[in-house]
């Protein structure tokens, strides 16, 4: 009985893989896989249809990169402060706030990016000339969304560094800055890498912020002021309409879903590996 319940989780994975693969294979029956992987034009729903996934992948990685520029320094800075500087009471008070930030539904971040961050901050405060839908706003707001992920995992890794290493360095006359950057940071590096990778995989898989705020325009560009479309946003936008089972539109959802699933799975496996490594060293 219990084993059956446990198997539901395995069934879920199998279900995901089977459902993705089945339709993806029929998709590649109609679209050559090289056209898909290397094509630079994505317009599956209009004639003449073109199925090059590169604009979606580049859109995804552009936004992910922007979000990392925000989230990595902020997340690591917050982690260093919490682990090395903050008093236990401050730490206890701040952690739930970060958890709350992590619990905000992503549609809310989407609303915030579109109705506040683009018009008030980017156009207003920094007087930038951006289109109303743009990669920059979505990316920055997404960065704030993944700060808690990066901060909390890397803070765990930093707190796990044995006190003896800190005391040894202080004993040699190192300042707190030197201890943080040259002792704690390298010692916790595998945990920090795991945190960042997990952050990346959340950013790659995030749908609502980009669907709402980045525009839904497959656009092969490196200019963050322009609208782009990500893999997730394409799936969301296409699945919204009632599309017939077995049609090529239906199959594109699965092909793009497979691409997304493979990317995040690889990242997660890597991150689990790294977390295991730092646990083995210090516990």
């Amino acid at each position, binding site marked *: 009985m*219990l*084993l059956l*319940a*446990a*198997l*539901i*989780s395995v069934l879920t994975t199998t*279900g*995901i893989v089977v*459902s*993705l693969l*089945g339709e993806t294979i029929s998709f590649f029956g109609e679209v050559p896989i090289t056209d898909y992987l290397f094509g630079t034009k994505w317009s599956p729903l209009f004639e003449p249809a073109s199925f090059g996934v590169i604009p979606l992948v580049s859109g995804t990685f552009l936004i992910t990169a922007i979000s990392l520029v925000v989230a990595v*320094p*902020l*997340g*690591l*800075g*917050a982690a260093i*402060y919490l682990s090395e500087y903050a008093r236990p009471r401050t730490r206890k008070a*701040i952690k739930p*706030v*970060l958890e709350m*930030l992590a*619990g*905000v*539904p*992503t*549609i*809310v971040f*989407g*609303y*915030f990016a*579109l*109705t*506040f961050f683009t018009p008030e901050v980017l156009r207003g405060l920094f007087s930038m000339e951006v289109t109303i839908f743009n990669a920059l706003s979505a990316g920055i707001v997404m960065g704030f969304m993944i*700060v808690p992920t990066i901060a909390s995992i890397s803070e765990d890794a930093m707190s796990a560094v044995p006190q003896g290493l800190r005391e040894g360095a202080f004993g*040699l006359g190192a*300042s*707190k*800055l030197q201890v943080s950057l040259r002792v704690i940071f390298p010692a916790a590096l595998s945990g920090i890498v795991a945190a960042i990778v*997990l952050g990346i995989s*959340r950013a790659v*898989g*995030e*749908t*609502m912020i980009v*669907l709402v705020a980045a525009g839904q325009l497959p656009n092969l560009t490196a200019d963050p002021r322009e609208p782009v479309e990500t893999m*997730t946003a394409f*799936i*969301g936008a296409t*699945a*919204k309409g009632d599309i017939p089972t077995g049609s090529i539109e239906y199959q594109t*959802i*699965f092909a793009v*879903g497979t691409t*997304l*699933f493979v990317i995040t799975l690889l990242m997660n*496996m890597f*991150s*689990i590996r790294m977390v295991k490594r730092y646990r083995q060293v210090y516990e």
Partner: protein
Amino acid sequence: MSAHGQVIGRPDRGRRARDLSFRLAMLTCLGLSVGLLGVLLVDVAVDGIGYLSVDFLMNDPSSDAGKAGIQPALWGTIYLMAVCVFFIVPVGVATALYLEEFADDKRWWNRAIELNIQNLAAVPSIVYGILGLAFLVRGPLSLGQVVLSGGLTLGLLVLPVVIIAAREAIRAVPPSIREGSMALGATQWQTIWRQVLPASVPGIATGVILALSRAIGETAPLIVVGAATFITFNPESLSSAYTAMPIQIFDWVSGRPSTGDNDFRPLAAAAILVLMGLLMVMNATAIWLRNRYEKRS
């Protein structure tokens, strides 16, 4: 001696300044992250608070922004959460019991189940939507775009959260309680039912609430499994068409053109306030449970 002095002597001014500015920089990082949460809450509150009213909670959506409300969305969300609870509690607890009380770590399939759960927790939510679309809405089960398929999709999505929390709660029950129970002649099942499970209820409940608070805000998978954006009736059964709070918000933010005096975005902000209110109540309950539980043990 002089070399020594350089290392352990009084920190010179430059060093102190560097230390202080580093500390300030780190504090700024933390402050910015927390500050953004504040700005976000204030912005949504300013936009939406004027639109919150009993009418807003009781009305159906409408193409006239002045008359639109969230009643069907609110009921849709309640139905979804109910389906979710009835799915994740038994399955999550049973899985956790199996892994903690019965599974032999040395067997490869048990390790595979564990790795699998860890990986499931990081699958993008929209991929669960695709799973729901292919297996629950269409395909083998063909339930259609109804409450049941939506709730089950969300349930599958948050199942790992429940499993992980339930395992921790079960692991926290001291072995002495199990041994004492067995020594008095109880079978393993009796021990689990009468000792282990009751002792781990607060931990499990906390996990379930946290899982629901994640499920309640999920939008992307519901878009894929076909929650409708314009529905003017409450769900009546598990096989009703439905909409949900986050879907309603999404529709008001980007589904319809907002022109002049027929602007739907403030309604989205008001609906966000209701959703965030629900979330805070859920999180507060979870924190309260956790604290009470920690004090006792």
